[in-house]
């Protein structure tokens, strides 16, 4: 805190002597481009969300105030997609975090080939999601897919129909998402584990704490902030999930796997309801913002 203050004062006195324009000139090109591809589009999005707006046909955009947002509350397909997305996000967190932590604890141990395994673990998250989604479609095929075969191998004779079952489609997609992103949670946890101080563990060992007690009372509390960072990153992406859903189910069967983001895409760019779709996008943005800030606050409370 103190160091921070003195640094600020130092910066202030420099600024008073002579305004140094160098940093502004260095950031200007990047800021201009960001304003063009991000800032202005966001403002325009807000403007469009207040209009009835379509690209096909001759009707000019009509200002309707918050009409689109009011209409959203009565749009069952939208509210369903919100609930579904929250369900998706909840399942995702509930699977990713314990699995990621477990893998991290395993690969935190010292044994031969450990570093190779850590390196290989990055592969699922960098593999092109659209391509991998299709590979999973083939693997999950209800009659010929390898997943069905593996289930039969362990004695499950009538596994669910995965992507074709309205009840199972979301958990199945969460599974594919977990395949891609649990390794990221694991790697973040590993970084957190490597940074833990050694003394508490020594002390606990001297006091005769067993492995579970050391995990429960030392590792877990100390790692909580790291887990919250992982949770925050996952929440941001889970709430926005679209690629694998678009590729694997297109929102089906029926609307059983239609997430907010997919509904948003369909409404705005397939059904040509640009204004309405803009309103959906703003709501989605707000949802991500609120959830992320809540987790940031939680993390501050935890540290």
């Amino acid at each position, binding site marked *: 805190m103190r160091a921070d203050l003195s640094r600020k004062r130092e910066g202030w006195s420099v600024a008073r002597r002579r305004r140094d324009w160098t940093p502004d000139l260095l950031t200007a090109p990047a800021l201009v481009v960001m304003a063009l591809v991000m800032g202005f589009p966001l403002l325009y999005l807000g403007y469009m969300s207040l209009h009835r707006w379509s690209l096909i046909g001759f009707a000019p955009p009509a200002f309707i105030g918050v009409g689109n947002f009011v209409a959203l509350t009565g749009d069952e397909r939208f509210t369903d997609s919100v609930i579904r997305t929250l369900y998706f996000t909840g399942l995702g967190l509930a699977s990713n975090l314990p699995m990621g932590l477990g893998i991290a604890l395993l690969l935190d141990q010292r044994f031969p080939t450990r570093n190779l395994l850590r390196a290989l673990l990055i592969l699922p998250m960098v593999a092109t999601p659209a391509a991998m989604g299709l590979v999973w479609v083939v693997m999950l095929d209800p009659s010929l897919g390898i997943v069905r075969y593996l289930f039969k191998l362990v004695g499950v004779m009538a596994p669910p129909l995965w992507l074709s079952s309205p009840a199972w489609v979301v958990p199945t997609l969460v599974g594919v998402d977990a395949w891609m992103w649990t390794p990221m949670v694991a790697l973040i946890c590993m*970084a957190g584990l490597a940074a833990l101080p050694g003394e508490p563990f020594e002390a606990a060992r001297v006091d005769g704490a067993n492995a579970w007690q050391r995990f429960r009372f030392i590792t877990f509390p100390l790692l909580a902030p790291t887990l919250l960072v992982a949770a925050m990153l996952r929440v941001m992406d889970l709430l926005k999930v679209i690629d694998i859903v678009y590729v694997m189910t297109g929102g089906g069967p029926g609307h059983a796997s239609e997430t907010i983001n997919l509904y948003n895409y369909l409404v705005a760019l397939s059904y040509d309801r640009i204004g309405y779709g803009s309103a959906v996008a703003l709501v989605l943005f707000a949802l991500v913002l609120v959830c992320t800030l809540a987790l940031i606050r939680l993390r501050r409370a935890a540290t």
Partner: protein
Amino acid sequence: MTRRRFRQGVLVVAGWAVVGAFLAPLAWMVLGSFKTTVDFLAYPPVLLFRPTLLNYAKVFADNNFPRYVFNSAVVAGGATLIGLLLGLPAAYALARYRRTAVGVVLLTARMAPGIAFLIPLFVMFLSVHMVGGYTSLIASHLIFTLPLTVWMMVGFIEAIPREVEQAALIDGCRIVGVLMRIVVPLTAQGIAATSILAFIASWNNFLFALVLSNDRTKTLPVAVLGYIGYNSIEWGTLMAAATFITLPVLALALCVQRYIVRGLVAGAVSG
């Protein structure tokens, strides 16, 4: 000693079992790309089979496929290069003069759903007849490559001792000279890692290309959708195309494996 051995053995087996499970779908995809349809549909599935290159031949027999590869390379290359040219000076300013406003922009970029930029960009590009052009695709990909570049490079630049730059400044070097002669050479490795991460993010991007490209400028992640038809699925061909798209990315990623998580925290805009 033997107990220790035993423990190590258990850990090795457990480690390979867990990581192996995560690698299995990739391995299965690569294997499948060399299988004939008969082998592919064999029940129970076969691990040993006579490999065929027929699937790859079919992928490249489609005259458009090389074009999609070219499109992906142009868009990812362009978005990476421009991201670097704009991002490097900004990262330097951020690392040395602490500009917090840029940090806020970066966080916003990480949180905003891609669709929030995509709808207005589509409308805007449409009104100037730019939908389907490389320019609009590259511009849209800057939404994630630029923040990613800045975020990654700030870390690398902060690791350079300040004295080196100060010495250069005292010797009469201009800020551009400092950047070109000191910062760039000293962070060469970081620049390479950053470029690779930006390239991967752009190469993998699906949604932006889906909306902003046309039949001529389609990139690979969009083109691969064409291999899954509703009446006839050429499974082997699909696996070959998926392998061809994914393998370069996997190879590049292994080169920069140490930096992957840092890059993902900065994040590609997903969705």
